[in-house]
């Protein structure tokens, strides 16, 4: 009897989550290397004894849009953008994390770190220390970085077979969460640039309007169902 109400509610719950995700995308419109997220909905069939099937909405998972954001020049040597599919490797207290945010700093000892103070890793998995006597940092397109003098090393650039499995952790970090990282070749590092967020404002605004309208119509459904029940209650006793 109340199935219509439950179906309406399942839609409203899913829409609220969709709204939360849209809000997060829009809040991160100017976040460096942010990847926008979209929810994936599916029909959830409930087997009714009478033979009629009822379908609820279920938010099943989410999809990360992995397209490269707009790359803008900042003119700072330690701003690195990745053009192509790949991640920088960063050593955090909780283990190795992957990020596309190339806004790096030098710490007081000359190590290259992220904004959170975690160390950038080179090909061998070691941290990278610069020489103060040679402050001109040059990063080549293939990720080779000069350490001063004749020494150089190469940044560790990794990719994943299925990067949808990566878990977002905030700070632009992705947790591999069991997924296997493999070295990537043939992508380009652009020095003095940062990758912008790939949130598409128009898409997000349109989806927000859609969410709002669907939410209202689900509400209408609930109202109609409510009216019907009221009517039943009022009219049933006078039937005999």
């Amino acid at each position: 009897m109340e199935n219509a109400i439950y179906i309406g509610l399942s839609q409203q719950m899913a829409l609220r989550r969709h709204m939360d995700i849209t809000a997060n995308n829009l809040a991160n419109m100017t976040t460096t290397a942010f990847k926008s997220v979209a929810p994936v909905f599916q029909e959830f069939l409930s087997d009714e004894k009478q033979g009629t099937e009822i379908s609820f909405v279920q938010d099943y998972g989410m999809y990360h849009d992995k397209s490269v954001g707009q790359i803008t020049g900042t003119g700072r040597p330690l701003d690195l953008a990745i053009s192509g599919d790949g991640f920088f490797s960063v050593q955090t207290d909780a283990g190795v994390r992957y990020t596309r945010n190339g806004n790096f700093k030098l710490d007081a000892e000359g190590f290259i770190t992220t904004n959170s103070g975690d160390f950038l890793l080179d090909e061998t998995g070691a941290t990278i220390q610069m020489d103060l006597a040679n402050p001109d940092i040059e990063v080549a397109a293939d990720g080779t970085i000069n350490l001063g003098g004749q020494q150089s090393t190469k940044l560790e650039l990794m990719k994943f077979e299925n990067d949808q499995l990566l878990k977002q952790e905030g700070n632009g970090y992705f947790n591999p969460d069991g997924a296997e990282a493999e070295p990537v070749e043939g992508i380009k590092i652009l020095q003095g640039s940062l990758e912008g967020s790939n949130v598409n404002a128009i898409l997000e605004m349109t989806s927000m309007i859609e969410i709002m309208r669907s939410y209202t119509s689900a509400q209408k459904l609930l109202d109609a169902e409510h009216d019907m029940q009221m009517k039943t209650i009022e009219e049933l006793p006078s039937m005999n």
Partner: protein
Amino acid sequence: MRALGTASTGMLAQQLNVDVISNNIANMTTTGFKRQRAEFQDLLYQDMRRAGASSSDAGTIVPSGIQIGVGVKTASVYRITDQGGLEATGNDFDLAIQGDGYFRVLLPSGEEAYTRAGSFQMSPNGELVTQDGFTVLPAITVPQDALSVTVNSSGEVQVALDGQVNLQTVGQIDLAIFFNEAGLQPQGDNLFKESTASGAPSIGVPGSTGFGTLRQRYLETSNVNAVGEITSLITAQRAYEMNSKVITTADEMMSTTNQLK
């Protein structure tokens, strides 16, 4: 609704973005000013449905779970220390640094501060001082009867004295460099102080490896790029508007719920 809080973090971030941009624009003609940029990062994520959780008793798993982010935060506001333009002033005591390094300044408190603004003056007793009258280190005294003062690219201060053929060296200006100059603590008045993040200064002669050279009678202008700042301002304003739209929509959705009979 989470969306309300999320959008408010977005609005706060854009507000700070505008604050940083307006400070850059306000300092467009400040000597030796370095533009700043606000860097944003995504905030925490809440796990609504974990990836890898089993979705049936046949052993299938959820390929990608649901993680809902709760907004944005400011990671840092950092200085971009690329070279500003050089402006010819013709003043003997105007010095510009081309390349890396900071002039050292002795504050009245006895502490050392660092600056890129080389618009120096003479004190009543002939010492080289900043616009605020703080001594430039190492202290250099120019004799009262000096006809002209020359500072060469490696920081040697030479004076021509009446009746003498050769120039006389009266001092040597040195520079300080830091591992992480973005970590210097700004004090206002174009001055910076050493911090834990910047590391200890390493002091050397202009022109030696890693240090910039000096240009006498030039000043370093600010490195603010007006076009770039205005474009960022437009982006920030639009992003602010969109986040406020999210709040309106979330509010409308809640009001719809409230109308439930």
